[in-house]
C-alpha cells in the first residue's frame, strides 16, 4: 500500500513531546523520519519498565547518532541536510544557529526545504525568543482561570501543546503540497501561544467581539450554567457525573422531561426562554435532584435509548477497554518485544488508500546510523568505519 508521505524525508530535532509526536505523525503516514541524536548521548536515568512515551513519540523513526562538535560531524550534517525535505524542530533560535541548523544554513544546503519550528510565542514580537513551554503559553492565553468551579485554582489542561503538534503537521504537509507544485520551500512556525489560543476558540472569540463580560472572565458555577441542558454537569446516584449538550431545548424537551421525570407541561419549563432564562436556576436545581435518582449506567442507557447528545463522564479505563476504539485503531494492541501485550495510542485519522502504519517502535540511539550513512548519504563502508572509530557517529 502506498502512503501519503512515502516520498518525504524528515529530520527530527524535536525535544518536546509535542514536537516529536508531530514528526511521528508524519512517519505514521509514510514519511521516512530520521531523528538526530546528538553525541555524547545524554545518559539520563532510564525509566523502569516500558518506555511508553518513547514508543509513542518516536515510533516509526530511525535514529542517527552524530557528534556535531567536530568538523567531520558537521560535514556529515551538511550532507544529510542536502537530502532532507523537512526539518522539524523546537530548539531556540540561538541554539539552531550555533549548531548550523538555522533556516538560512539549512536552506543553503537544501533550497526547497520545508522548515517547521515550534516556538513559544511566534516568530515575531518582543517575546519571540521566550522558551517554548506550554504552561507559560497556556497561562498567557486567558483560559486557565475560567475552567474550574469558582474559588478553585486555575487549570492547566495540556491541550495547547497537542494542538500545536497537529498544527505543525498540518503546516508542514501544506507547505510540502505547495512545494510539489512550485518547487518552493518555506518556513512553518507554530507557537504554543497561538495553539493555546485556538483551543480557547469560542470563549476567546466571544471576548474579542464583546470586549467585556464577567461570565467570560470568572469561572461559572455549574449550578449557574447558561443552559441547564447544554454544557451542564450533574452528579448521578453513584457519584459519576453526567453531561448534556442539547442547545436546542425545544427539540429535546418532550423526550428529555419524560426521561428525567419532570412533567413536560410543567408551566415553569414549557418554553426555551423559561428553561434558559426566567426559570433557568429552578431547572438546574430540578435536574440536580433528578440525576441523583439513578446511577451513571442507568443514564448512559437512557441517553442511548433516546439518541441524546449526553453522556457519562468517564476515566481513561473507558476508551482503553472500548472495543470500538480498537476497531478504529485509535488505540493499538501490540506485541512488545520486551513487555508482551500492551496497548498504545494509535492513529486519529482513517484513510482508505494510505492508512497509517506501525512498522517499528522507538529506535535505540544510533540504531540506524549505518543505514542512513550508507543508503541515504552513499558513504563507503570504509568511511563509515572511520567515522565510527573516530567517535563522530555511533
Amino acid at each position: 500500500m502506498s502512503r501519503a508521505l512515502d516520498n518525504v524525508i524528515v529530520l527530527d530535532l524535536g525535544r518536546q513531546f509535542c514536537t516529536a509526536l508531530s514528526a511521528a505523525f508524519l512517519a505514521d503516514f509514510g514519511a521516512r523520519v530520521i531523528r538526530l541524536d546528538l553525541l555524547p548521548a545524554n545518559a539520563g536515568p532510564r525509566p523502569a519498565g516500558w518506555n511508553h512515551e518513547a514508543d509513542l513519540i518516536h515510533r516509526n523513526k530511525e535514529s542517527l547518532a552524530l557528534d556535531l562538535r567536530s568538523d567531520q560531524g558537521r560535514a556529515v550534517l551538511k550532507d544529510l541536510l542536502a537530502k532532507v525535505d523537512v526539518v522539524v524542530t523546537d530548539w531556540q533560535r540561538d541554539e539552531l544557529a550555533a549548531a548550523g541548523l538555522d533556516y538560512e544554513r539549512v536552506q543553503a544546503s537544501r533550497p526547497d526545504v520545508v522548515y517547521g519550528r515550534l516556538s513559544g510565542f511566534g516568530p515575531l514580537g518582543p517575546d519571540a525568543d521566550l522558551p517554548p513551554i506550554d504552561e507559560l503559553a497556556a497561562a498567557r492565553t486567558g483560559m486557565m482561570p475560567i475552567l474550574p468551579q469558582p474559588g478553585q485554582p486555575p487549570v492547566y489542561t495540556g491541550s495547547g501543546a497537542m494542538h500545536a503538534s497537529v498544527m505543525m503537521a498540518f503546516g508542514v504537509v501544506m507547505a510540502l503540497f505547495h512545494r510539489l507544485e512550485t518547487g518552493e520551500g518555506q518556513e512553518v512556525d507554530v507557537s504554543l501561544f497561538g495553539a493555546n489560543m485556538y483551543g480557547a476558540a469560542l470563549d476567546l472569540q466571544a471576548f474579542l467581539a464583546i470586549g467585556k463580560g464577567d461570565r467570560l472572565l470568572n469561572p461559572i458555577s455549574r449550578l449557574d450554567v447558561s443552559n441547564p441542558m447544554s454544557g451542564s454537569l450533574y452528579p448521578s446516584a453513584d457519584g459519576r457525573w453526567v453531561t448534556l449538550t442539547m442547545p436546542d431545548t425545544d427539540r429535546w424537551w418532550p423526550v428529555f422531561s419524560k426521561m428525567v421525570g419532570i412533567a413536560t407541561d410543567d408551566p415553569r419549563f414549557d418554553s426555551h426562554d423559561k428553561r434558559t432564562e426566567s426559570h433557568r436556576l429552578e431547572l438546574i436545581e430540578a435536574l440536580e435532584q433528578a440525576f441523583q435518582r439513578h446511577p451513571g449506567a442507568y443514564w448512559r442507557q437512557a441517553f442511548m435509548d433516546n439518541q441524546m447528545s449526553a453522556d457519562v463522564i468517564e476515566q481513561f479505563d473507558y476508551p482503553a477497554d472500548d472495543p470500538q476504539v480498537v476497531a478504529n485503531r485509535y488505540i493499538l494492541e501490540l506485541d512488545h518485544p520486551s513487555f508482551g501485550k500492551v496497548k498504545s495510542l494509535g492513529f486519529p485519522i482513517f484513510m482508505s488508500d494510505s492508512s497509517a502504519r506501525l512498522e517499528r517502535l522507538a529506535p535505540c540511539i544510533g540504531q540506524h546510523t549505518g543505514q542512513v550513512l550508507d543508503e541515504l548519504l552513499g558513504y563507503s563502508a570504509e568511511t563509515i568505519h572511520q567515522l565510527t572509530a573516530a567517535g563522530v557517529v555511533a
Partner: protein
Amino acid sequence: MSKALEGIRVVDLTVWFQGPVAAQHLADFGADVIKIERPQGGDQGRGVRSIKSLEVGDWNQYFLVINRNKKSMAIDLKKAEGQEILYRLVEKSDVFLSNLSLDLLANWNLSYDKLASINPRLVYATNTGYGLFSSASKPSFDMTVQALTGAMARLGEPGQPPIYMGMGSGDAFGGIMSALGIMLALYQRRRTGKGQYLDASLYGAQLYLAAPYLQSFLAGHRESALQQSRKQVANPLWNLYPTRGKWVYLCEPNRDDRHAVVGRALAAEAMLQDSRFKDAAGRAAHNEALIEIIENATRQHGHEELMAAFDREGVIASPVNNLADVIRDEQAWQNRYFMKTYCEEVDRDVDVRGMPVTLSRTPGELRCLGPQLGQDTELLMMELLEYQWEEIEAMKAKGAIP
C-alpha cells in the same frame, strides 16, 4: 502573494463548529471553499445568539469567523434536483467535506461510492462522532465526546467536578485534525492522481488530544486518569502559586541551582536553609512542605511585584492571565493570531482570531468574513456549473434552490 492551496476547490457540507473550522483552515490558505447550506435557515451555527448567557454582540461572531473566506450556496439536498446540482459541483471539485451523519449522507445519495463514481480524484472526508467502525450512532458534540475520552475526569482538584477544556476546545482540535487529514490526501493525490476516503472523528481526535496522559495510563500508570492536587505535584518548582493578585505559573526544573534562584527571588530563607530541600530527591520527597513554603512566600506579594522579582533573578514564570489580558497582548497581534477585518453586518472593523499556523512564503489570508446564506448560489451555478438561466428558474420552481 501566492497561496498554498491555490486551485483547490472544497465542497463544505458542514454545520456547527468542528466541520466549518476544518474548512476554514483550508480557506485561509487559499482554497476555494463553497459552503452548502439548507435553504431554510442554513447552518445551525447561524442561529447562535448567545454564549454563556451573553449576547454574541451586534455581529454573529460564532458563525462569521469559522466560515470566513467561504462562499455559500443554498441547496435543498433532500430533492433529487438539489443532488444533481451537488453532483455537478463535485465534478469540478477536489474535496468533499461533511460532518453530517453517514446515514443522512446516504439518504441524500451523497455516499463515498456515489461521489467517487462522479469524480474518482475526489478526496472525500467525513467527521463522524465515534469513528467509521463504531456502532454508536447518536449525535455527538464536543463536550459529550470529551466526557467519554477520560480527559475531563483527570482535571481539577480532587473531589471537584470534572473539567471541560473550554467551549469548542474539542471541536477546534477535531477541525485541525480533519484539515490535516485532507492535506495528507491532497498531497498524495498530487503525486498519484487518486482520491480517497478519509474520516477524522471527534472521538479519535480527542483521544489523540489526551496523548501524554492516556499513553501513560495505557502503560499501567493508573494515577494518570485521576485528579491531582496542585499541593502534591512532584516538582514544587513547576507549579501554580497564588499571589495577592493573579495566580502565577512557576516553570523551573527541579535542579539545585534553579531552586536556589527561586528561593532568592522569593527571599524565602526557609527554602534555602532547610536540609530537606538540599537536593532534587529531597525536594520531591518533601514536596508538600516545600509547596507550602513557596506558597506562603508568593501570597505576600501582588503578581506584578512577584514577577518583577522573578524577572530580576531570571526565573521562568508567567502570571495566569484572563481573556481581557490576552486580547491586548501585543505578541498575539504582531504574530497575526488576532486580526482586524471588515464586518458588513455592522459596517466596521471587528477583531477576530487570526492565523495560528505561520507559513513564510504562502501565509494565510483573511479576505472576508462568513457569507450570507446562499449568496453565491446563482452566480456559481451560471459561471462554474454552466447552468442556463432557464434551468436555474426550473430549479427554483422545483424548490431545489431558493
